């Protein structure tokens, strides 16, 4: 098992394309269509390496409250989890949000989707997450609520 990935995407075709693509690469993939399903999964999942989120699902309202909550939950569970944002309508603004507000690892546009680039990015993200997950486990900081302490030690 090379890594655990969650895909949150409401377009079935894209969800299936992405999850099929990643499964064929050997990842353990869970795909869901809504934020609620995503939250349920995060609640019981451990060691999530990568979450791939459609930015439009996260950006439900102006304050992005729902989306931000999901993101903070993801980070609480595991500070090592990487996030990749995808969008069907990429603007400079959504890109800025992805990086600045959601601290995304990378940002992909469906209208310019390059699957090779996507594969490489996912590999890199999962590798980083796995490495950090190891350090996390080694130090017995299994539970995400100790993330802050962990963060203080790792990112002075």
């Amino acid at each position, binding site marked *: 098992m090379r890594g655990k990935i969650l895909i949150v995407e409401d*377009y079935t*075709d*894209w969800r299936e*394309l992405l999850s*099929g*693509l990643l499964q064929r690469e050997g990842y353990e993939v869970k795909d869901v269509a809504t934020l609620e399903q995503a939250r349920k999964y995060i609640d019981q999942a451990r060691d999530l390496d990568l979450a791939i989120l459609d930015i*439009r699902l996260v950006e439900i309202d102006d304050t992005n409250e729902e989306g931000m909550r999901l993101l903070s939950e993801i980070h609480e569970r595991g500070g090592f989890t990487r996030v990749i944002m995808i969008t*069907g*309508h990429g*603007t*400079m*603004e959504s890109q*800025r949000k992805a990086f600045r507000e959601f601290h995304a690892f990378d940002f992909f*546009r*469906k*209208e*310019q*989707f*390059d*699957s*090779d680039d996507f594969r490489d990015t996912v590999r890199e993200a999962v590798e980083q997450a796995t490495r950090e997950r190891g350090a996390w486990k080694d130090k017995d900081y299994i539970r995400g609520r100790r993330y802050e302490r962990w963060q203080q030690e790792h990112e002075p």
Partner: protein
Amino acid sequence: MVEARDTQLLDIAVQQASRLVQARGSAFYLCDPMGQQPELAAAHGSQEAPWSRELIQRACRSRQAAMAGTSDSPAMIAVPSVWHGAVRGVLLVADSSPHRTFGEQEAALLQPLAELTAAAMVQAERLTRMQAQFRALHAIDVALTSSLELDRVLNLILVKATDLVGAEHGSLRLLDAETGELVLKAHLGEGWTPEICAYTFRLGHGLTGWVALHRKPYLCADALNDPLNVVLFEQMRSGVAVPLLEGLSEEAQAGQVLGVLLLESARPGAFEQRDVELLEAFAQVAVIAMQNATRHQKLQLLHDALQDEHERRVAAEKWAVMGQAATALAHRINNLIGLVPASSAEIRRTLSGLEIPPEDREWIDTNLQRIERSGQFILRMADALFRPFQEPGPLARFGVNRLVKEALQAADPPCDVEVMVDLGQDLPPVESNSLLVDVFLELFTNALRAMEGCPEKQLQVRTRAEVAEADTWVIVRISDTGIGITPEKATHMWDMFKQSEDGVGFGLWWVRTFIERQGGTISFQSQPGVGTTFIIRLRTAKDSEAVKA
């Protein structure tokens, strides 16, 4: 002058004259003050005619009763009709009965009648004149208050004033408060050449200038010999000018001079003090009409401005609604069509690991390429189509020079293109969003494309600040030495579906829409075979300070 001839009155007078002295015939001759031949105005018992002209003229000249009559010719008596020393006419009585004569006794009887007739005539004349003037003033009032366009009002004022005093020539000048010159606004009569029209009077200069300076009317009986007069028309012999004063005449001293109304006539002494008074009264109405027209004009401008603003707002609202719809649609298209190249790439990838006969592989590949190409085209088109509606991000201040440099870098001109950049120093920042760089990029890309295959390739970019319409603008000129735009193409330059070889036909349409949405303008000048220049004017941020280039 008002021509007044009450024939009924004169008919009665001549009948009374016959009855008074028991004569068979009588007549009344009107005497023209200009000294022309007396003219028959009424007659009674015309078998007694012809009337002796000699006798009439004698009575006229002497201002006394004149008598004639011999055994051969009928007896006649002519009595002048005098009013205030002026002979208005001659009352003539004749009787061809044998032995009839007229003497002092008849003269004494006829004299009061002749005088009364003169008085009645004058009164009738006055009445007629007053009626005419009243009608004229009323007509003026109606005409002026119902007309609100300033130029039309000024013309109307002049026409009516000319009618009112029986002038043949007239001009209306308004005082330009800044230059102190009386500028011609309306004129009437013959001989107004462009040179004469362009002639202006300064305060105190000429008759008009005198009237404007002293705020008093001026009656000029002998135009050619009046030292005040500046002769513009040689044939004009007399004139009258009144000031157009703001406020009522009592407070005229406090009021401002708006202009001067000058009326002229080819007749010497054509105007009287009464005409002056009439014109002064008329000027008050005229000024009110002018002020109404000016106010109306201001209101109209205000109304137009509000209308524009309203239209802009409605357009902005429409745009916002369209933008929401467009964004949703763009999202959907990207999601659906974006899947095509992505899925196709997956097929290609999977196939690469399989063993397939080469001709089949080629066929599959060709078809995949077709699918991908179409998908990409739709995506590009959707991108171009929805770009104007895109949430452009928050407005921010941008230094145009920096964006121009960024766009130039992105356009990446080939090395055989000579790029000349002339960036103005200390340009104020413009308020826009990050898409502005795409505008420049689009124009640079177009310019480079237009120069492909041209022997001389020169791309010039120039930025400058310019103050116009109370705003500061940043002007960007982008010139190329490309193939240029033919006049036929130029007319459809900004159309949405102007298809180019490899584009989707939205580029310039989007550029213009984007710039105009932000209150700027874009235009171009082109000469086929020589090149094209695009000129972009961008609104600068309010209270902005210059950005170092």
